[in-house]
């Protein structure tokens, strides 16, 4: 039963990686990153059930707080970029070629 949750968490994590790598819209990329963080949260909660301790749930709450802070900053960056270029496609950002 708990294994199913862990498998789901790993599937979500892989979907997140694919989203970050393949999508070109800034919003979709940030959503994919949130998906990865939430996959880790799901794993924390499932494992906390497995170990029968509350630690995992506390850790999941902390990760959610950090993820919220990061999302706030990401939205600010999206607005900043939209002011400069009027588009949110990562292909148009080409001033820096590393």
């Amino acid at each position, binding site marked *: 039963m708990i294994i199913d949750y862990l498998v789901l968490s790993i599937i979500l994590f892989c979907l997140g990686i694919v989203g970050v790598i393949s999508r070109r819209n800034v919003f979709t*990329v940030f959503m994919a*990153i949130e998906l990865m963080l939430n996959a*880790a*949260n799901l794993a924390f909660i499932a494992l906390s059930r497995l170990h029968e301790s509350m*630690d995992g749930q506390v*850790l999941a709450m902390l990760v959610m707080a*950090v993820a919220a802070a*990061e999302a706030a*900053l990401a939205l600010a960056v999206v607005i900043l970029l939209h002011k400069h270029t009027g588009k949110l496609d990562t292909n148009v950002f080409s001033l*820096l070629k590393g």
Partner: protein
Amino acid sequence: MNCDIVPIIPLGIVGLGAVILMMLAAFEKIHLEVAAVFSMCVFALAFVMQLLPTGPSDMAPYSELFRGMLVTNGFTKVAALIILACGFFTAMSSTSYFRQNSFCTLEFYCLLIFSVWGMLLLTMARELITVFISLEIFSLCIYVLVGYNRRSATSAEAVLKYLMLGAFAGSFFTMGTALVYGAVRSTGFAAIATFIAENGFLETPALVGGVFFILFAFLFKIAAFPFHAWVIDVYDGASVPVTGFMATALKTAIFAVLVNFLSLDAGLKGAWLDILFYITVFTLFAGNLIAIGQSNLKRMLAASGIVHTGYLLIAVIAVGDNALSGNIILFYLAAYAASTLGIFASLSYLGGQDEKRCSFDDFKGLAKVRPYSAAAITVFLLSMAGIPPTAGFMGKFYIITTAFQSGQALLAVLGIVSSILSMWYYLRLIIAMYFHEANEPFEIEASPFAPICTLILAACVFAIGLYPMVI
């Protein structure tokens, strides 16, 4: 005095200073340069408090309250000293930088102090979620600092790139922590060490996977080989003082926690030695090749930062069980921080308005017009290249001798080869400064802070080099 509080005092001072400055900034009561002086005072006070003796061995302040999540020892103390010094000199050189660039507000210094706070916490953290949170505290501050110039499209792109990749690495760290928690039932370093000692490292697949993800995140943050591409663009897009701060303080904090993490157990480190070996070799040579091809100074310094990450990784691999090896990493970090901060401090007053002077050609003939600045830059470059009697030479010397002693002769030889290769791009700037006629007068707006900062750091380069036993 309760001695539990002594290691926490610097954290308290820095955190309180940041909050006070944020309050003042909200009401716009103070002038920008007053804020800079205030943050310098905060860093200086915390630095002095950090020097209070606490004993060399491991000590967990308030272990009942924090459940052993924070541990201080000699290593974390010196790492924190380096970080505080980086913050001090960054605040000092920003004052001169913002005489010529006008996008500064009071929050710049708040974010600087908050990020130093996160780094100080990171050096002490002995619990994976504490590591994650302190990592994010200073990362979030540095994302904002990178994109601080809102009118510049370049810095907006830099912050997008950094934020996307940084958050990506951060989510790997969280997943790694979840896997480690699944295997060990705890995220404390002490519990992980006990677990590995009882069950062995490679016998638990979830633990191996978790540690792999965690190392992935660390290697990303220090810009080691497969994850080095972001660093050049981000350093290029950020303003000069912020670039200097990122290159030094951030690297010190991450290396401190990386060493703490890898030295948990010999089995944990032994399993990754082969992979770390190849990562180190590729980091050294990829960094050198990128640096040789650059014509922009900031991009060259970013690429040379990758090479220095490579040297530090040599030291991490060669670290033995004795405490001396940790000191070698700190010595190199201090030497590297002094010379890198020095170069960025001089760039921040020589760069001119909107950083108009940024390539090698723009600094032609600097020695004819401003001989002292040129001499200081030469000192910093020679220290980064590793020429005696500078601190950089001593640092490289210690790292390479340790590598030989621990049987990593190939790594030591490759380190020397890469050091010779790196002369190419360091000497190029020296030649541009000394052997060309000056095309322009290099006028600067009068602000004594950054030149004084350059002078102090040039003295530090020799002092660290001449008195290696201080650390």
